[in-house]
């Protein structure tokens, strides 16, 4: 094939269609549930029905007697398997609180895995699981993280850690403050809830002594490393494979008990073992997130400057500490100041275990919570100082002149240094676009006519591009087809398309000729996957650097063959030609690749093949920024909130594919609306989860989800990446609860009314009746 047949597509900044879509719209996707192996077994987990209790006995005999059941395991059957370790390596201070794949001595939440049934088919496995008899002596459950901590296994208390960050002299600042404003606010327990439940298949290939796991997502290389550590196997003998993944949102793809169990079972039972989670299990077994209570004070100067911020928070971690360790506490305390200067700051996080489902990261972890809390406080400051909420924010925003702005705060091992950005400038643009002043007049008139309608704003800065490093490999074959191998992951965000566009830019080829590999631990040594809005920033930059190296090699080889110098050449549509004479002598990338095969006499001293591998190391994360504005109406009869208008402003630095970025913002907002108004895992006093179906855990449908107006700017490319890319994955959700809460306050005319999410009709009716409305 001499040239690409279609017009070359896919430059940076083009909203091209996604490479991912054709199999997904034709039913040809390969999700983990779609994968089967001959002779496979099916696993079903027997879970605790008690929130807290001592395991006295587990009787598996009736289950074992069911025809088709091959084995039933309790923790004694796998007493050599250690608890699930932390993703970023062992941490002796937290080791005690880790979860074993099957509960040992105690159960610590409803849903805690106690036994595993392996059978010939999934229906039999589920039948037999019903016959496993758990004798559990109930213990008093701890439901609230702000109650007094309890004993933990006689060795510690349920306050597993205190995470503290800050700078400056809090006591002096507050002693000298013109005014001190305090709020006490809560973020409910909710989580990502991808449409595909989790699943995993373990398979042991005895011929090669290789353990394989299918159904990996998000961080396959990290999970391989943890599995190797736990099972004492070499990295070369453990391969994880990511197929299609039905949504990630931070919760999918961490290493869970069930993932370890299918691997251990595959090794010991000698047959492939498949586990597919059902939705009821998912809602009590996959990571929950978000639940925090903050008691936060602002020391305010006479002009509205917040000169000090003092926060104490209780983080409800649930039954165990899973793979993330204390990362959510770190991100909450590290990002709470947001886009504001706050010259003195302290946040103390009580990181506490309770008897609920373990918690970890969900899209925008730490920032979603801290943004809601901080923006509630900023509204309270405005009210206390009788200032306009916008004016208070302006007074405190970090200015462009102060950028890059460093703070003595840590976010995931990175000392925070804000990328240059004009926070106030983007605010001006956003307010102008939405017509803020006219909107205020219009809403005031409508309120005067008896409507409960109001607007609110929430400002934020995001973090993206978590380092430290990433690598990519590119190989061009003799037909000119290109393979890009990455350690990234695709969880639905359009990773393949973004990587192909980035590679296509430097390789001068159509993005549709590029195959992008991700999530395959046997194809590349290193990978950090897709989380923390890092994939396009880190992996994308590694792909770009690699593509540049391959381009240079192609031009160097072509220059010799065309008897010219490399500087005079360029690549268009996969063809190398003279910049000045596009119709002149030319070579396809495939022809150049052929000239570089090991046996080629044309190759000279060059390394064989048209290929390359480059690394990218980042010194700080990138820090994009933006704001949300919501306009809502409240129905005083039902307590229902309707979002009438929504606006998101965001500076992305540099767009790879604006259509996909907007998709991230709109989709993130839908989840933000869920967290702000509907989604909540509630528990009874006995610790029974009360939201284990979609009839109880209410996610927004089309009717409840606004179609936001978006202002996507590229005014401040990141100084941390050569392409200026900043992340896009989380900004749609970060500001949502703050803006919606502010708008509700405004609509009902009760400043500071909303102190807790979700603002359900029940909560809002209670607020209204307490204020005689």
């Amino acid at each position: 094939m001499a040239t690409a047949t279609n017009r070359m597509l896919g430059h940076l900044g083009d909203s091209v269609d996604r490479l991912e879509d054709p199999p997904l719209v034709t039913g040809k996707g390969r999700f983990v549930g779609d994968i089967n192996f001959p002779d496979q077994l099916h696993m079903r987990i027997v879970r605790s029905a008690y929130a807290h209790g001592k395991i006295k006995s587990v009787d598996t005999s009736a289950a074992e007697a069911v025809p088709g059941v091959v084995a039933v395991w309790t923790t004694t059957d796998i007493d050599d398997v250690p608890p699930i370790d932390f993703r970023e390596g062992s941490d002796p201070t937290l080791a005690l609180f880790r979860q074993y794949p099957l509960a040992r001595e105690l159960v610590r939440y409803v849903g805690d895995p106690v036994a595993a049934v392996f059978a010939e088919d999934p229906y039999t496995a589920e039948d037999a699981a019903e016959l496993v008899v758990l004798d559990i002596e109930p213990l008093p459950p701890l439901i609230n993280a702000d109650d007094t901590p309890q004993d933990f296994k006689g060795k510690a208390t349920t306050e597993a850690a205190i995470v503290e960050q800050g700078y400056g002299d809090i006591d002096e600042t507050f002693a000298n403050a013109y005014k001190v404003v305090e709020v006490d606010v809560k973020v409910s327990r909710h989580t990502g809830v991808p449409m595909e439940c989790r699943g995993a298949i373990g398979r042991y290939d005895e011929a090669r002594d290789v353990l394989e796991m299918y159904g990996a997502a998000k961080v396959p290389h990290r999970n391989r490393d943890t599995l190797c550590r736990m099972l004492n196997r070499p990295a070369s003998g453990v391969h994880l494979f990511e197929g299609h993944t039905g949504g990630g949102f931070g919760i999918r793809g961490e290493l869970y008990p069930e993932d370890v169990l299918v691997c251990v079972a595959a090794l010991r039972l000698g047959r492939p073992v498949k586990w597919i989670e059902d939705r009821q299990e998912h809602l009590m077994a996959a990571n929950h997130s978000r639940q925090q209570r903050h008691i936060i004070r602002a020391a305010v100067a006479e002009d509205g400057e917040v000169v000090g911020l003092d926060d104490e928070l209780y983080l409800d971690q649930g039954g165990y500490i899973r793979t993330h360790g204390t990362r959510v506490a770190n991100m909450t305390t590290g990002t709470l100041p947001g886009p504001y200067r706050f010259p003195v700051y302290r946040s103390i996080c009580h990181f506490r275990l309770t008897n609920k489902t373990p918690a970890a990261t969900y899209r925008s972890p730490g920032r979603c919570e801290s943004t809601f809390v901080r923006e509630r406080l900023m509204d309270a400051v405005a009210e206390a100082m009788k200032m306009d909420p916008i004016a208070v924010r302006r007074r405190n925003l970090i200015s462009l002149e102060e950028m890059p702005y460093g703070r003595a705060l840590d976010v995931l091992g990175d000392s925070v240094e804000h990328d240059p950005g004009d926070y106030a400038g983007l605010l001006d643009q956003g307010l102008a676009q939405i017509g803020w002043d006219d909107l205020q007049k219009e809403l005031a008139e409508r309120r005067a006519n008896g409507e409960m309608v109001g607007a609110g704003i929430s400002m934020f800065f995001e973090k993206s591009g978590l380092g430290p490093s990433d690598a990519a490999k590119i190989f061009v074959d003799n037909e000119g087809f290109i393979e890009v191998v990455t350690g990234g992951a695709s969880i639905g965000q359009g990773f393949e398309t973004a990587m192909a566009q980035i590679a296509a830019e430097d390789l001068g080829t159509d993005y549709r000729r590029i195959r992008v590999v991700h999530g395959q631990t046997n194809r590349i040594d290193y990978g950090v996957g897709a989380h923390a809005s890092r994939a396009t920033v880190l992996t994308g930059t590694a792909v770009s650097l690699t593509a540049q190296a391959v381009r240079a090699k192609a031009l160097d080889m072509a220059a010799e063959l065309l008897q010219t110098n490399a500087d005079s050449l360029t690549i268009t549509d996969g063809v190398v030609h003279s910049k000045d004479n596009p119709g002149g002598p030319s070579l396809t990338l495939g022809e150049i690749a052929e000239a570089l095969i090991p046996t080629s006499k044309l190759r000279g001293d060059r390394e064989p093949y048209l290929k390359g591998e480059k690394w990218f190391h980042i010194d700080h994360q990138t820090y994009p920024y933006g704001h949300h504005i919501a306009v809502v109406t409240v129905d005083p009869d039902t307590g229902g909130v309707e979002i009438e208008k929504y606006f998101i402003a965001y500076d992305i630095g540099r767009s790879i594919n604006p259509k996909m970025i907007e998709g991230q913002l709109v989709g993130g907002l839908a989840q933000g609306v869920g967290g702000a108004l509907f989604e909540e895992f509630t528990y009874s006093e006995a610790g029974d989860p009360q939201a284990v179906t979609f009839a109880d855990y209410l996610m927004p449908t089309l009717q409840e989800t606004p179609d936001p107006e978006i202002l996507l700017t590229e005014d401040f490319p990141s100084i941390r990446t050569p392409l200026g890319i900043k992340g896009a994955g989380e900004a749609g959700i970060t500001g949502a609860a703050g803006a919606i809460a502010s708008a509700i306050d405004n609509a009902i005319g009760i400043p500071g009314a909303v102190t807790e999410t979700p603002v359900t009709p029940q909560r809002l009716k209670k607020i209204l009746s307490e204020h005689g409305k």
Partner: protein
Amino acid sequence: MSDKKDITLTINGRDHNVSVDPRWTLADVIRDHCGQTGTHLGCEHGICGACTVLVDDAPVRSCLMFGVQADSKKIRTVEGLAKGEEYHPLQKAFMENHALQCGYCTPGFLMLATGILEAQPDISDDELNDVLSSNLCRCTGYANIVKAVRAARDEMKAAS
């Protein structure tokens, strides 16, 4: 567990003769015994709609129907939407409007929309919103799904 029953499911025009347990759901029979894994399970209690297929041209949640109930019935799944290499207008519109991200809920939305657009080619935007609110998507925020289905409606109407 129980005696199997021999049934015939006609899926996308092809007969599948399968021997099923009466308690197997239609979704499980389609996926595990007829090899058509394009139909996805999202909740298995009839709320999310990811498993929507057409049974005798009407949208049905295949997690709430038993396989035996579909004996001799005409079933259409996402695998049957395209005509050879030619995409169905809805498939095309979903790709052009970025109406999918992870793609897990997509087959359910496509079959729901196919059923409703065939039954009501002139359906209004408001009625369409009501219908599309019966399925859940966790990635897209729905706006692009609405755009895609409206675009396909208009194209299918123009072509008819």
